[in-house]
C-alpha cells in the first residue's frame, strides 16, 4: 500500500446553517486529467508551467457555435480572430473547420497567409493598416474593413495605384443600449457618419462595398444588444439597396460573445450567467430574418468570435512553489504561474483547481505568482484546500488572449502543448531559451569583450 500523504492540520470555523453567498459550502473538484491525459504526466514531460490546448474541445465548441447559427440562418461564416490566439496550430485547426481569418495588423495578415488562408478569405480589421498592408490586401482580394476616413482615402489611393478594385466594408459603431459604447472604432451610426462613409464609397469606381461590420464591445452579457446592432446594420443595408440598388454580400457582427469565465465583481459565476451560443444566435438571426432586406438578397452572416470559441479549450498547468502565512494570518499560496502568463487574471476570477485529490477543508487563500512584483496576484481571495510544495494546479478556461498577450518577463515563456484528437500530446510551441531571448539583442561593439 502506498504511503498516505501527509496533510497539514487546518483549524476552520464551523458555520453550520449559515450559507455563504454561493450556498452552504465550497467544493473544488480536482482536475486530475485533461482529455484523459493525467496532468502530472504532462508536467513531468513538458515542465511547469505549461499551456495545454484540447483540440477536441476546440473543434466541438466551434461546431456547437456554427450549429447554433446555421440551423437558424442559411449563410453563416466564422472568421477566426487571430489576436485571440494566433498559435499556428490553433489557427490551422479553425481553418480546417472552415473558419476564415480575421486579422488586425500586417503581422497577423502575413501569419494568416502563411497558415494557408487564401487572400479572399481574410478579413482585415483594425485602425492600423499601412499603405503596404492595404496594397497587399487589395491585390489578394481580401475584405478590408475601413475604420476611419483617413484609411478610406488611403484605400482609394492604393486601389487606384494598383489598378484593382478593393473589396471593402465599413466598420460601424452604434448605441446598442450597453455601456460602455465603443465609439473609437469605425464610423458612428446615429450621427450619420456611417451613411456619410457609404456615400463616399458607393460612387467610387475603385471600391466595392461588400459588407457592413460592427463590433459592439467585449464580453457582452446581453444578447439583445446584438439584435439591436443587427437591426441597425440591416437598416443601413436596406438604405444602400434603395439608394444604390446594391446588395451587400455580408453583415459582420464582429465578436464580443462572453465565455463562461467569471468577471471580477460578478455576483454569480459565469457558467450560470453567460449567454449560450444559442442565445446570441437567436438574437442575431432573429433580427436579420425580420429585417427589411430583400428576401432574395439576404447577406451572409459573418462572425469574428474569438474568446467564446477558444476559452474552454485552454488550460494552464502549474506547480505550488510555497505556502506562506501573511502577517495578518491570512494564508497564501505561491505558484509558478504569474500574471505575465495569465493576463486575463486582471479581469477574471479564474477557475483554479488542484490537480490531485485533496482534503475537503478550505481556507481563504491568496494565490500569488512567482514574479518578484507586488501585482503578481492570480486570485486575491479564494476558498482553497491546502496544498504542499510540488503539488500541481490547473487553471482552466484560459484559451483566449493569454497566448497572445503574454509577457516575456523575468523568465522564459513556457511550452504550449496540444492534446490532439487521438489523445496524443504534441508540442505546438517550444519553451523560450536563452538563445531565443538573445537572438534579437544587438550588443554594440564597444561593449563586446574581445
Amino acid at each position, binding site marked *: 500500500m502506498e504511503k498516505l500523504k501527509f496533510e497539514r492540520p487546518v483549524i476552520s470555523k464551523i458555520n453550520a446553517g449559515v450559507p455563504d453567498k454561493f450556498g452552504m459550502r465550497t467544493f473544488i473538484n480536482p482536475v486530475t486529467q485533461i482529455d484523459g491525459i493525467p496532468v502530472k504526466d504532462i508536467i513531468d514531460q513538458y515542465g511547469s508551467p505549461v499551456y495545454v490546448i484540447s483540440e477536441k474541445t476546440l473543434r*466541438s465548441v466551434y*461546431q*456547437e457555435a456554427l*450549429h447554433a447559427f*446555421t*440551423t*437558424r*440562418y*442559411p*449563410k453563416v*461564416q466564422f472568421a477566426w480572430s487571430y489576436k485571440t490566439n494566433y498559435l499556428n496550430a490553433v489557427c490551422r485547426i479553425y481553418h480546417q473547420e472552415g473558419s476564415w481569418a480575421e486579422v488586425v495588423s500586417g503581422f497577423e495578415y502575413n501569419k494568416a497567409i502563411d497558415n494557408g488562408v*487564401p487572400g*479572399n*478569405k481574410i478579413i482585415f480589421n483594425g485602425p492600423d493598416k499601412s499603405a503596404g498592408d492595404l496594397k497587399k490586401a487589395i491585390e489578394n*482580394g481580401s475584405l478590408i474593413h475601413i475604420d476611419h476616413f483617413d484609411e478610406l482615402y488611403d484605400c482609394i489611393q492604393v486601389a487606384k495605384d494598383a489598378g484593382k478594385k478593393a473589396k471593402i466594408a465599413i466598420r460601424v459603431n452604434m448605441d446598442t443600449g450597453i455601456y460602455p459604447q465603443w465609439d473609437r472604432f469605425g464610423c458612428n451610426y446615429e450621427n450619420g457618419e456611417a451613411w456619410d462613409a457609404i456615400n463616399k464609397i458607393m460612387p467610387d469606381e475603385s471600391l466595392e462595398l*461588400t459588407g457592413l461590420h460592427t463590433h459592439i464591445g467585449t464580453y457582452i452579457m446581453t444578447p439583445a444588444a446584438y439584435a439591436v446592432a443587427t437591426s441597425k446594420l440591416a437598416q443601413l443595408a436596406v438604405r444602400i439597396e434603395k439608394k444604390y440598388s446594391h446588395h451587400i*454580400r*455580408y453583415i459582420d457582427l464582429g465578436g464580443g460573445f462572453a465565455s463562461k469565465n467569471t468577471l471580477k465583481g460578478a455576483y454569480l459565476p459565469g457558467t450560470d450567467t453567460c449567454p449560450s451560443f*444559442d442565445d446570441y444566435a*437567436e438574437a442575431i*438571426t432573429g433580427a436579420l*430574418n425580420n429585417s427589411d432586406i430583400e*428576401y432574395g438578397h439576404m447577406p*451572409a452572416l459573418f462572425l469574428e468570435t474569438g474568446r467564446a470559441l477558444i476559452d474552454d479549450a485552454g488550460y494552464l498547468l502549474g506547480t505550488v512553489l510555497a505556502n506562506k502565512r501573511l502577517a495578518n494570518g491570512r494564508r497564501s499560496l505561491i505558484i509558478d504561474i504569474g500574471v505575465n502568463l495569465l493576463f486575463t487574471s486582471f479581469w477574471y476570477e479564474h477557475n483554479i483547481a488542484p490537480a490531485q485529490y485533496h482534503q475537503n477543508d478550505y481556507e481563504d487563500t491568496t494565490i500569488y505568482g512567482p514574479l518578484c512584483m507586488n501585482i503578481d496576484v492570480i486570485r486575491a481571495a479564494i476558498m482553497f484546500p491546502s496544498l504542499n510544495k510540488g503539488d500541481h494546479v490547473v487553471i482552466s478556461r484560459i484559451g483566449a488572449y493569454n497566448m497572445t498577450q503574454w509577457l516575456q518577463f523575468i523568465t522564459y515563456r513556457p511550452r504550449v502543448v496540444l492534446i490532439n484528437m487521438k489523445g496524443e500530446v504534441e508540442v505546438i510551441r517550444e519553451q523560450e531559451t536563452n538563445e531565443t531571448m538573445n537572438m534579437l539583442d544587438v550588443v554594440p561593439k564597444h561593449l563586446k569583450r574581445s
Partner: protein
Amino acid sequence: MADRLKIKKYLKKENTRLFFSGIINSYSQIFFSTNRLFAAIVLVVTFFDVYAGLYGLLAVLTTQVCAYALNFDKNIVARGLYGFNSLLVALGLGIYFEASPYLFLIVVLAALLTLFISVMLQGVLGKYALPYLSLPFILAFWIFFLASWNFPALGISERGIYTFNDLYTIGGDTLVRIYEWFNGITVVSSVKVYFISLSAILFQYNVLSGIILAMGLLIFSRIAFTLSLLGFYTAYLFYMLVGASITEADYSYIGFNYILTAIAVGGFFIIPSKLSYLWVVVLIPLVAIITTSLNALFVVFRLPVYSLPFNIIVLTFLYILKFRQKFSPRLAEVYIQQDSPEKNFYSFQNHISRFRYDYYKPVKLPFMGKWSVSQGHEGEHTHKDRWKHAWDFIILDGKGSQFKNEGNVPEDYYCFNKPVTIPAEGEVVEVVGDIHDNAIGEVNIKENWGNTIIIRHDDHLYSKLSHLKEESISVKKGDRVKTGQIVAKCGNSGRSPYPHLHFQLQPFPYIGSETIDYPLANYIRHKDDGFEFRSYASPDKDDTVSNIESNSLLKEAFNLIPGQSLCFEISNGEKKHQVNWEVMVNAYNKSYIHCKESGAVAYFENDGDLFYFTHYKGSRNTMLHFFYQALYKVPEGFYKDLAIQDDYPLNVVQRKWILWIQDFLAPFYVFLKSRFTINCYHIDDVLSPSKIRLLSTSENLIMDKQTGRIDFMIDITDKGIESVTIHTVTRQTQMKQCAE
C-alpha cells in the same frame, strides 16, 4: 425610330420567308412532313404530268396569297397546312381535265374553296383538337367533280392515255426508257402495287413515281417509311384472308389509304410505340372494310372515295383516344407537333424521363440548413395507413445526437425553436398556435397535431406543418405566404415526445386529413462523402437533407432575361470569330436563345434551383449546339463535387448514320444513349464567390459503350458565363465572352 424601322424590315423579311416555306411545305405536308428535300422530291414528281404540276403550283400559290391576304396565322400557312389540300385538288383537276385557260380559272376557284373549307374545318375540328387531314381536298374535289358534268368546256384529259408523249416532251428518249424499264421490272407484284399506291396519292399511276416517293419518305422518316410498309402489307394480308386481291386496280388506287393511316396513327399523331404499331395492324382491316362499303355507296354518285376511309378512321381513332381516363405513355398523343415521327419520338422519350414532374408544384423542405429525417414515409411510429406519406425532421449534431446536455428539456434539442419556413407559395388556411409544448417524453393525445399551419398551394394540394412551438406562429388564416418565408418555430406540441417538425402534403384543408404521396422538387442529400442532388424525390428515414442554397454568382449568370444579348468570341487555335445570340420569349412564355446567324434556337427553363435546356432546334454545326450541350442542366447552388446527370434527346446529339438504324427500331428497342454529366468543380469562395468552374461532359453511347465524348469547362464570374472551353478528341475550342 431606327428601331421601329429595323423591326419593320425584319418582319417583312420574316413574312417573305414564311411565305416561301409555305409553298414548299405544301408539297411535303401531303405526307405529314416539312422536310425540304422530301418536298422537293414531291414537287418534281408532280411535274411528271407537266400540266398537273403547273396547276398544282398555281393552286398552292393561290392559297398562299389568299391566306396572307385574309391574314390567317402565318405559322400555319408556313407549315403548308392550307396549301397541301389545294395542291391535291389541283393535281386531281389537272390530271382529269384538259389543260386550258378555262381550267386555269377553275383551279384558282378550287384552291380558294379548298382554303375556305380548310379554315372552316380547322375551326370545327380544332375545337376537338383534331386535324382536318385531307377532308378539304375530298370535299372540294367532289364539288368540282360533280359540277364538271355540267361544264362541257372542261374536256376530259387524254393525257393519261398518252403518257409517253408527255414524258418525251419533258425528258426525251432517256426518260421514256427509264420509265419503261421501271414499269417493266419484274418485282413481286405486291411491291409494285405499293409503289403505285404511293404515286396514286399524287393522282399518278406508275412505279417510277412510287419509287421516288418511297425514297423521299425514307429520307424524311424511317419510322414513316416502316409504317407505310406495315400499313400496306397488313391490308395486303387482310385482302388475301378475305379472298380478294389488292393487286386489282380498284383496290390499288385507294391503296394509299392504308399507307397514310399507318403513318398517321402509327407515328405522326401518336408517339411511335409498340402499341401504336399494333393499332395500325388493327385499324387497317377496318379501313379496308370502310373503303369497300363506301365504294358501294358512292358508286351511285359516280364519286371516287379517294382518301375518305383514311380520314374517317384516323379522326375517329384520335377522337376516341381523348376519352381515355388516364394518360398512358405507351400510347401517347403528340402534343407538340414537330412534323417528324422521329423528332416526336425522341423528344417524347426525353421528356418522359426528364419532365415527368413538369406539372407538379415545386415543394421545398420547410426549414433552413441541414435536417435529418427521423421518421419517413410509412414510418414505424405514427406514419401509417392513411397518414403514411409524412416526414418527421430533427437536427443532429456532428456526433449524431439530436440534443445537447442530458436532453431533459426541449431547449436541449437542436431543432427546438429553429425557424420553420414555407415549402411552397400559397395561402394559409388553418392555424393553431396556442397548444403548450410538452415536457420531454410526454405526449398530448387530445390535440395530437399540436400547433399547426396548413397552407393551400393548389386544388387538392395542401401542406401541413405540425408540432410547432407554442405562440411562435407569425401568420394568420388568409395570409399569402411565399416559399422560404419564416412562419413559425419548431416545437414540441401535440403528440410529440421530443421536439421535431412534422411535414406532410394532403388533399384537404383539414387538420387530420389523410396524406398524399407528393415528391419534393429539388433538394440536396448530404452524405459523408459528399452531396447528392435529388429531384422530385422523397427523403427516406435517416437522410440528412437541405434545400439548395443558391449561389449568387450562378444565379446571376443564368438569369437570362428576354432581350439580353450574348456575345462570345470563338477561337480554336488559328481562327477567331464572334457569335451573337439573343434571349427571346415566345407566345407560350417559353424562353429561348436565338442564334441570329444560323437561326438555331435553344429553349431553356430556370426554376430557381436549376437552369436547364429543354429543346434544341437547328443545325448541329453551331456554337449554340455546343453551348446547349455544355450547360444542359446546371444547378444554381454550388456544392463541391456535386454531380448531376441527365439524358439528351438522341436526335439532337447522336450521329446521323447511327440514328438511321435506331430510327427503324425506335418504338421497340433503344440501343443509343446520350448522357450529360456536370460537376461543381471549383469555387474560390462559397459566400461571396467571384469565380466558379464547372466541368461537364456530353457522351454518346451505343449499348452502353462510349462512342463519342466532348468535355466542357465552364467558367462563371461576376460578368456571367465568362468562357466555355470545348474539348473534343481532335481539337479544343474556346468561347469567351466578348469584351464590352
